[in-house]
């Protein structure tokens, strides 16, 4: 059965030749329970809305006049060849691009009816509401406890009992609790890659964000750790709006409800994941997911 799925996903050209065939059925069986494969974007409430949103590095327009609605409590994947502006867009959502001196934007990026780039927006608060997990696990050189408690402490939580509660809840949320509960005060750098990344996820969850941004969260991990992160994303779906950038198309197919394909700063195609992978409307999308370029 899984070989069939793999075959369907690694050779999507075969499955696209037979739209609506067993490949999709298999696919649906492997995807997360409750995923609405046929729901359209239009019926869902948008959490983040880009309106003719452009991002520039100096004169270089890395994201061009992008318009898309990212639905609340769903997983949205962004795929596309290297250098197409995926990270740039993702990092714009919680304004991590502010760190880059010559980076500026144009257009609107609405988050809960508020423009993220409004000068009145408090970036610190914004980042607390929009958490981020990076490509490489980036724990602080502190204990696991201190890592996870970092965000709550920033928000002024000093009570040790409450902090311990938050840490436990977050680690459980990241399915790491049982693994590390006996060594919470060991240095987080002592964990291996997969657990480190899950701890980073727990650290982001501890702040209680509304949106989780993930930039290739599994690209530095081995297949088993990747699987555990993917499983985790499945569990978090529904509680958080998740935007994930990935180069792994199987991953996008497995974890996301909606997929956006970007190419050279432009949004080429955006829609239901199953549909995009099985029956892309655009030639470029098809070429990309069939491996003809990128």
């Amino acid at each position, binding site marked *: 059965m899984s070989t069939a799925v793999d075959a369907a996903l690694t050779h999507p050209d075969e499955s696209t030749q037979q739209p609506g065939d067993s490949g999709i059925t298999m696919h649906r069986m492997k995807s997360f329970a409750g995923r609405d494969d046929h729901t359209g974007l239009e019926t869902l409430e948008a959490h983040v809305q880009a309106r003719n949103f452009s991002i520039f590095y100096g004169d270089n327009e890395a994201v061009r006049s992008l318009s898309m609605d990212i639905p609340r409590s769903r997983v949205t994947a962004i795929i596309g060849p290297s250098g197409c502006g995926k990270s740039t867009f993702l990092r714009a959502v919680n304004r991590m691009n502010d760190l880059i001196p010559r980076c500026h934007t144009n257009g609107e990026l609405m988050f809960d009816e508020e423009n993220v780039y409004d000068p009145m927006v408090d970036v610190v608060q914004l*980042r607390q509401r929009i958490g981020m997990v990076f490509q490489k696990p*980036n724990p602080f*050189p502190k204990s696991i406890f201190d890592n996870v408690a*970092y*965000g709550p402490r920033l928000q002024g939580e000093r009570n040790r009992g409450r902090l311990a509660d938050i840490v436990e809840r977050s680690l459980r949320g990241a399915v790491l609790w049982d693994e590390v509960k006996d060594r919470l005060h060991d*240095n*987080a750098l002592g964990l291996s890659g997969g657990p480190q990344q899950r701890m980073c996820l727990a650290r*982001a969850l501890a702040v209680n964000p509304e949106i989780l941004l993930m930039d290739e969260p599994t690209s530095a991990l081995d297949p088993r750790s990747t699987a555990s992160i993917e499983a985790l994303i499945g569990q978090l779906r529904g509680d958080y709006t998740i935007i994930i950038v990935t180069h792994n198309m199987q991953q996008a197919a497995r974890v996301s409800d909606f997929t956006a394909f970007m190419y050279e700063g432009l949004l080429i195609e955006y829609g239901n994941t199953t549909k995009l992978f099985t029956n892309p409307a655009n030639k470029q999308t098809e070429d990309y997911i069939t491996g003809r370029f990128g």
Partner: protein
Amino acid sequence: MNLHTRKLLDRSFTAAGFFAIVMMACALILILYPIISRGLGAYIFRATCEHRRVQFEEFQAGSRQEIEREAAEIAAVRQPVFDMIAAHEKDLKAELQEAFDQVRALAAAEGGFLQRSLERRLKRAHADASLEECLAVLSDIRESLKGQYDHERFIGVIGVITERKQRVEQAAGKLSDMKHALRDLLGPLPGDRRPELLRSHYGQTRWDRSLHYLDKFLYRYDWDYTNAENTGVKTRTPRADEFRGTDLEPAFGYVRDNIEAMMQPRLTFYWRFLTTDSRDAHFFGGIWPEVLGTFYLTIGAMLFAIPMGVIAAIYLCEYARPTKTVSLLRSCMSTLAGVPSIVFGLFGLAFFLNTVGVSDSKSVLAGSLTLALMILPTVIRASEEAILAVPFTYKEAALGLGAGRWRTVLTVILPAALPGILTGIVISMGRAAGETAPIIFTAAVSVGLAISPLQALDSPTPALPWNIYNLCTEHEAVDEIRHVQFGMVFTLVALVLALNIIAIALRARISRKLRG
């Protein structure tokens, strides 16, 4: 390039590297060996009974019974020498007796005013009078006789006086020399007036110095200039030869054979060298004021330099936009790091003392500020490098969790940069502790007592680097206290080394904690 030449090159590089390391090790040993071996000599040495007396009388260390028992012991051993000297003096006085007899006879024969005048003088040369006094009385009498208008009548007596006086005076000169040498070795002799300088109150406190002075007691060193063609030749004659046939001749052999019993050398660990102040320009006692002064100056300099330096580094790395001004600032700082330290000293005098007037005279405060200024570029540079070396991902992670810039710096960047910052601090701390030039004009005095932290605000202090220099250039008897000088150098080196080791340990601990 073929394999052969490449291998050859590799090997020669290895050899060159090895050579450099060996050279450095040799240099280190060459420098450190005398510092350690001779410096330890200030702490661990064979101390004589005189050392213990100094310690008891000046520093209230040691037990009274012990000191008194020892004093009785050495007095018993030394007494024969003093007896021999007394006997010799008596002999010499006896030689003068004939002259006195003739004067007395003359006085009786003359009568009248001259008799009274002569007898008044003769009274001064009573039986207990010292040799010097007797000689002085004779001179006096001779002059008064010569002063008479009909002095030809006394020509016979004057002749006898002159002849006796000359003979005895010569012997007395040698005796005086010998007593001088003995005083250097054993301290004041019985019957001496109390000397003014404290250093003359005691004999040699160290066994090595005792042997040196024993030699000077046993032998007479002179410069022989008889051959005008050549430079002077040093001659060495046994003093015993000068006293051949007298009561004093056996004294030299006696002192040589009994020197240990006279000085009672005992191997001593003199830790008070570190913790006591000094007496009579470092002749006795320790170096505590200098150590404490160095400590104050170093800590004071760090107190100013660390916060300023680290904050400046944070500003340059995290806040300053990379503009022309900032890069100019950076070049200025590099230049500042290369400015000779004496210039900083002069600046400290001109700015902190004369312009700002942080204190009325030189003070630890002014010195600390000057030192802080001197090490500031090093601290900034090291901190900057450490901050820049902190992975960008840490910063990203903190900002991504909603930390502000300042919180990111405090909670993530500084802790991660701490080992590097510490290294810079340690390097500059060693420099601050050992630097002489900046404190000459701003903080250091040659002699002084230990001061309290509060006094540090407005009073100067002795400090190790300056006093090492001062001792060897300005001390009037530096040869007598070489051990103090080496002790200071050793202590300074040990202090800096200790600071370094503490910091290295601290750094290792922090690094281990960071690495997990």
